[in-house]
């Protein structure tokens, strides 16, 4: 229970931003919570889904970070 609250405190503040980007943050949180609650290692499919999401977010981060102030 305490572990689940700890995970919620880590992830929940960030979920609105995930939703802003069209990422299902609730699903992401519930997946991490399920892995923890079931006391098991994530499956390959769960890793692949997370990796794909992170790859997409990293590409968007890099594109946004390249923006420069006008005139520079």
């Amino acid at each position: 229970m305490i572990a689940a609250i700890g995970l919620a405190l880590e992830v929940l503040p960030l979920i609105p931003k995930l939703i802003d980007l069209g990422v299902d943050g609730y699903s992401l949180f519930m997946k991490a919570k399920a892995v923890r609650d079931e006391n098991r290692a994530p499956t390959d499919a769960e890793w692949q889904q997370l990796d794909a999401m992170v790859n997409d977010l990293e590409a968007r981060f890099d594109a946004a970070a390249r923006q420069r102030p006008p005139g520079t």
Partner: protein
Amino acid sequence: MFLKAIALAFVVVVSAANSGCSTGQSTPTVDAASLQRKAFELKSIYAGALSGAIVYLEQPRCTEPRTVVLCSSQAVADDMVRYRDMAKIGVDLAESSTRSMTGNVPAMQAAVDGAAAAVNGFKQLVLVYQGGK
């Protein structure tokens, strides 16, 4: 300064694990599974922090005089890139070292601890700047 502290802590824990343990390969254990679970959680948190950073970075960069209400500072953007780079190294190392569950458990633990520090630093920076400067 904080970034340097995280980088130093990361190097120290990984070095300590590599130099202090010579037991070599071990069979899969519950500990290895729990470390992989922790690496998965850290990558999920990293995904959340990335999304918060993107929302900030996609705002127009601030100019003087200011022309928009919400903008992103170039200095903060540069910091986010540095913190993101550190967190990415951490989560990638934690994932690669824990997914097979056949490696050196102390080294896995060091990788996960380093990733936790780096991801936490990135997340804290993003939380400070959520909603614009």
